[in-house]
């Protein structure tokens, strides 16, 4: 089976019903996306396909059509993506386990809406659980990332 992940073509041997998450983690060596629930209820496994935030734990790898971007492919040319930079500046992460998924959801949000309102943030991020309760800083960081992105553009 072939997939494009973070700009690279990779090949691996998987049953088509295997969720993309496990193909990435156990077969393709991409441990960035995390396992949290396996039932699309927590967002830890979020990756982006065709601009959409997708729960990779609930998408059979055989159904993947587009190129996959994970947290590991977000930084380019050794430079953090504005969302990652904002997360770093705002010191968002506590345990950090949910943050790959949070960052990917925020990345997809900002691709679609460059200057999101609080309500946009609520809608886009509601599927991403954080048991450490980093929500206040996530909100601040998304707004910061929006302005960083604008400044870089």
């Amino acid at each position, binding site marked *: 089976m072939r997939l494009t992940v973070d700009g690279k073509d990779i090949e691996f041997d*998987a*049953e088509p019903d*295997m*969720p993309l998450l*496990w193909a990435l*983690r*156990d*077969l393709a*060596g991409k*441990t*960035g*996306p*995390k*396992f*949290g*629930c*396996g*039932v699309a*209820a*927590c967002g*830890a496994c979020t990756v982006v396909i065709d601009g959409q935030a997708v729960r990779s734990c609930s998408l059979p790898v055989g159904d993947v059509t587009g190129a996959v971007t*994970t*947290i*590991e492919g*977000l*930084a380019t040319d050794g430079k*953090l993506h504005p969302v*990652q930079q904002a*997360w*770093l500046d705002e*010191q*968002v*992460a*506590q*345990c*950090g*386990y*949910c*943050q*790959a998924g949070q*960052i990917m959801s925020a990345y997809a949000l900002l691709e679609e809406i460059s200057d999101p309102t609080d309500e946009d*943030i*609520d*809608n886009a*991020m*509601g599927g*991403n*659980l*954080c*048991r*450490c*309760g*980093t*929500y*206040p*800083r*996530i*909100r601040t960081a998304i707004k910061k990332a929006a302005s960083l992105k604008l400044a870089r553009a």
Partner: protein
Amino acid sequence: MASIGKIARRTFLFGMAAVAGGVAVGYYYYRRPYPNPLEGELAEGEVTFNPYLKIGSDNTITVIAPRAEMGQGISTTLAAFVAEELDVTLDRLKVEHGLPSYAYYNAAMLEEGAGFNFWDDSFTAETVRGLMGAAGKMLGLQATGGSTAARDGFDRMRQAGAAARIMLIEAAAARFDVPARDLTTDNGTIVHKASNRSVTYGEVALDASKLAPPSKVTLKEKTDWKLLGKPQKRVDMLAKVTGAPIFGIDVRQPDMLFGTVRMSPVFGAKPVRSDTSAASKMPGVVKIVPIESSYGSGFGVIADNTWAAFKAAEAIDVEWGKPDYPLSNDDIMARIADAARTGEASAMRDDGDVDVAFADAPQDRVIEAEYSVPYLSHAPMEPMNCTARLKDGVLDVWAPNQMPVLVRWFCSDIAGVPGDKTNVHTTSMGGAFGRRGELDYALYATILAKETDGRPVQVTWTREEDMRRGPFRPASVGKFRARIGNDGLPVAVDMRVAAQNMMASLMSRTFTSLPAGGSDPSITDGSRNQPYTIPNYRVSEIQVPDLPIPVTFWRSVGNSVNGYFHECFMDEIAQAGGIDPVEMRRKLMANHPAALAVVNKVAEMSGWGDSLPEGKAKGFAFTLSFGSWCGQVIQIADTPAGIKLEKMWIAVEVGTALDPGIIETQMTSGAVYGLSAAMGQAITFEDGRVVQSNFHDFDAMRIFQAPEFEVAILENFHRMGGAGEVGVPPAAPALANALFALKGQRFRSLPLSKDVTFA
């Protein structure tokens, strides 16, 4: 487990002997230093000064932060202790967890366990605190829990940095042939101003390491701190925003297999009939093996990938034994309620004479209430997992765990290899909240590693296994009464709190040969030790017998239960006495200036007493836990979609704020954790099995539900408190009290979602 029983008995007895037998016996043991565990693992050109510090000839400075990083920022704060005295900035350092070692014992955790009120400075309290600390050294508890890690490392790790700096300066002085006092340090370099010469720490590290450590070091005054007391950038933040493989579940070893477990859903039961043949033949499955352990019975699946293991585990055809405890949630809770009402109680606090005070109380001056809270799962984001390899007589265990020394004891015992042939690698943890102080995930991985001919195996639990097998936060029922005086203040308060004995439950899974009788102070933690002065004030513990549901520490432990009980009942007392709840606290806490300052601060921040528009209300609660005094006010609003949490104000007294940035995030984190449980979480039972299975029926607060937060950190008290758990206990009662203020109705049972819809 015989050998472990013996080790444990010996060490526990030593600990107890020190406490019981007086200073003379204990003292020698306490002073005897442990060997430096870094000696054996130095890289080329690297030297070590003490168990906390390595310096390479290339000036790479590595600090060992021997407490588990589970999101509380402890690795950053511990590194800052060494860095502050060594005179380097945090970005110059590498931070490692270190191998399990007795050198990294946690004294503060046992000191806290001594059972004295936190404000009690009396000779006995101080002596016993000191002795319990000594016992911690003997036990070699490299534990992370009880919000103790920063307090524990505060002196030891600063001294480690200061002593090394003195030695480095001496070595440089010898090299330059100048007096040490003419030298200064600047971020990893030693400078001789007069001759304009300088040398890095790394260049003199080897010479310095040969010098005798100074007999006395003087630590910096607080006013001279450059790092401590100021928010630091977390040392692991970059790794966490780039998806770096730092968690247990990210461990990758050559030739690694994957696996999972399927354990009995009935506590204490074994499979009575099973057939694994179909599951064994599924694609990718290597082997299915039975698991028998002190934690439970079931099966382990070894496979080529985690998904194959999950599918095969589900396909195992098994019938489990019958429960030997009540089957339904109602019956289990009734057992606890019966104990609260009629069980034999032991008073853990007993001021004045409560029985006399109630004997002649006029009926209309007495209020009574019964409260209850459910069992809870910790549900950390990273499900339980562990990777193990048993090869050539050496066991390696990669475990996101809070108890490396115990993991080593138990896993080496299972693998049949000596402790010194067992390497426990503690990874970063995707949350823990007490759950990773248990050992099951490590035991199971070790059991499976015996079946793989030397190949490493990573054993990941499904969320369903994680949520249903426990151990859980114990459920609890409290029965309370108060007599209100003519001035509206309570004359007498009598609280009976019933729950399972958590220590006994823990012992039944670990040190099975040790007796586990006696009191469990966690049952009343957060009720019996609050800074209120009430003339007749009794808080009693009642243990619920014969209930084998596995229970354990859950973020803030007994305080998460008793914070709710105590502070909601105080709110009821204030109402009955016709006094504003905050005003009543001011009166009852007048003897404790630290508490009073917190109450006043949070009242001022939140505009307590200001009039609110129709449909909005505020609630207040206060809990002293883990040495920190925390007051919270929450404001809620009734909206068409349900109750919305608008804003929470938190004031916390921590003594010394080592890193205000981290303390602030820990306060909001704790509050979110406590509010999540209060709003919607419960583990319930049907047919003796857990009903909930995943985040769809055991959810937590989402971003759109989170209130805005404002946190104030106070530093008035003379002793330092913890941070990681302190924000949890007042959150549930603040919310329940706000709901009362809004609706005029008491909510005496959690979760609140049984009675209230949240937006």
